[in-house]
């Protein structure tokens, strides 16, 4: 099956007063229909910028997609006109944002907002769109959806708002949903419910899903494949199973080691990654991770490592052959 989304060598830079920020620097990945991809990394590693670039939502200025291709259903999204990309947004590709408390307009009813993509893309009447949104809200398990469509966002709890956001995303039955930290601001119990819901819905509708998160647990459970990002580049990619079972990049190994686990002896110390994520204005030369890497050799500060296969469906960008 051909790829639904094929991102090739994407470069998104921000031109700031202090200098050039290469927020995304040569990212390539692909996604098949119905597949779930996890995009993992620390804050500021370029996960969200990658997602916003796909929908061309990078504020310009200061941001700009300077290179690469984003092939979606055979079309390069970067080359589309403003009207054409607008027809893709919310229709073929939907996005769910991380702040359920502020991602809904406080002066419009939930029904109006869930209807919005349907009205924009389907040209249906308001009444029909409202009926459709009741169905959608029911499908995201909002009880008494018929009356809740008349409610305003401040009547909803965080979890319910995020459900409404998911309903809004599903409105036009998109081929791809990008969820940017969809559960970060929520209680753990609600997180699990919502992820389960999203997984089921995407399975039922055959929608592909990109989950952007810094939560490795989320990815482990729900993603088919995982891309680990560091300083604007993908440093490791592979199936979720291979990355969790056999992480090969020192950064991924470090990430795993810094997550507390219940099944570990409490006397086992967590091993944090030393140092700070790099300031993207001054990315270290060579492999951006080398100043924090315990395996770094002489070659690392000099040449940027390209992704290379270490296994079937498992690539890393590292000069060393590290095994956990």
């Amino acid at each position, binding site marked *: 099956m051909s790829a639904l989304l094929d991102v090739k060598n994407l470069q998104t830079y921000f031109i700031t007063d202090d200098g050039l920020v290469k927020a995304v620097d040569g990212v390539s990945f692909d996604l098949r229909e119905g597949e779930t991809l996890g995009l993992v990394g620390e804050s500021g590693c370029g996960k969200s910028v990658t997602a916003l670039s796909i929908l061309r939502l990078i504020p310009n200025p200061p941001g700009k997609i300077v290179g690469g291709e984003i092939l979606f259903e055979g079309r390069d999204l970067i080359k589309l006109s403003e009207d054409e990309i607008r027809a893709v*947004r919310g*229709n073929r590709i939907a996005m769910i944002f991380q702040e359920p408390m502020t991602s809904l*307009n406080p002066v419009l009813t939930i029904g109006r907002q869930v209807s919005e*993509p349907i009205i924009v893309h389907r040209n249906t009447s308001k009444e029909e769109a409202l009926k459709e949104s009741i169905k959608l809200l029911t499908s995201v398990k909002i009880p008494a959806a018929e009356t809740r469509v008349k409610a305003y966002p401040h009547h909803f709890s965080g979890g319910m708002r995020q459900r409404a956001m998911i309903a809004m995303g599903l*409105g036009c039955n998109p081929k791809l949903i990008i969820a940017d930290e969809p559960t970060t601001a929520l209680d753990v119990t609600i997180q699990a419910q919502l992820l389960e819901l999203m997984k089921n819905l995407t399975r039922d509708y055959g929608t592909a899903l990109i989950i952007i998160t810094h939560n490795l647990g989320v990815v482990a459970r729900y993603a088919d494949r995982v891309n680990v990002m560091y300083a604007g580049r993908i440093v490791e990619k592979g199936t979720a199973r291979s990355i969790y079972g056999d992480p090969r990049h020192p950064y991924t190994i470090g990430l795993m080691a810094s997550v507390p686990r219940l099944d570990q002896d409490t006397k086992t110390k967590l091993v944090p990654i030393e140092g700070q994520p790099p300031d993207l204005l001054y990315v270290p030369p060579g492999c951006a991770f080398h100043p924090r890497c315990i395996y770094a050799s002489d070659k690392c500060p000099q040449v940027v490592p390209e992704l290379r296969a270490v296994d079937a469906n498992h690539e890393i960008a590292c000069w060393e052959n590290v095994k956990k």
Partner: protein
Amino acid sequence: MTDAITDQIEPRRAPRVGFRAVLRAIIKHKLSRVGIIIIIMLVSMAAFAPWLAPYDPNKQDLYHVLSGPSMEHWLGTDNVGRDLLSRIIYGARVSLMVGVLSTLLSATIGSLIGLVAGYKGGVVDMVVMRITDTFMCIPWLVFVLVLAAALGPGLINIIITLGALGWTGFARIIRGQVLMVRELPYVEAARASGATGRRIMFKHLLPNSVAPIIVASSITLGLFIMVESAAAFFGLGAQPPTASWGKALRTGYAYLEIVPLFSIAPGAMITLAVLAFNFLGDGLRDALDPRLRGEGEKL
């Protein structure tokens, strides 16, 4: 003049408060309660003028010209023997009509201009705001006089002139709000769901930016009533025989020593109206900003 308005209303997030909560807060605010009572009085005067006024405002009683207060004419009569009380009651119509229409006009123009400037940003914003600054430099009364002279006197021309001048404060307020609101996640979410620029502007940005406009409108309304009276004072507003406070003030001014009430009464009405709308504006400002709620009590 508009600077004062703009400065009072710094851009801030539209507080999410229910209509009822705002109403309750306005009524709790002592000054705005006074304002509301006066405004209700003025509006009823304008609306029920034919029933309230003891005489036809244009009917002359030539036996009582320039008479002081009496049982027949409570406030006395003017220089051509018309009942002053009736003319003041009818005069509320002119003042309120000019005030409301010109405020509506300038708030609409200003909101649209501020919305576009704030949303588009960059060069558009720069150019539009410099034009706004230029308009702000124009001395109002002089411009009103010049334009009224060019267009000819009359109420419609005064309204147009005030609308053409008064939008600057509104534009600045809305622009400031839009600059803040457009960064909020729901605007990005709307864009991500494929909404057009126009849809984002009118469905998301404008409704979340208008709260301070309500406050500014109330204060501007009072200001416009005053400017209208000033224009009428110079003979540019309502034309005879229409009853107008500004004109009565002007005519009465000549007879100040004989019948002081002839100019004091319309002057008091103008002051009262301007004050009432300012009080309401103050109350609205505090009511719409929950941080200030309750402080009105101390006034």
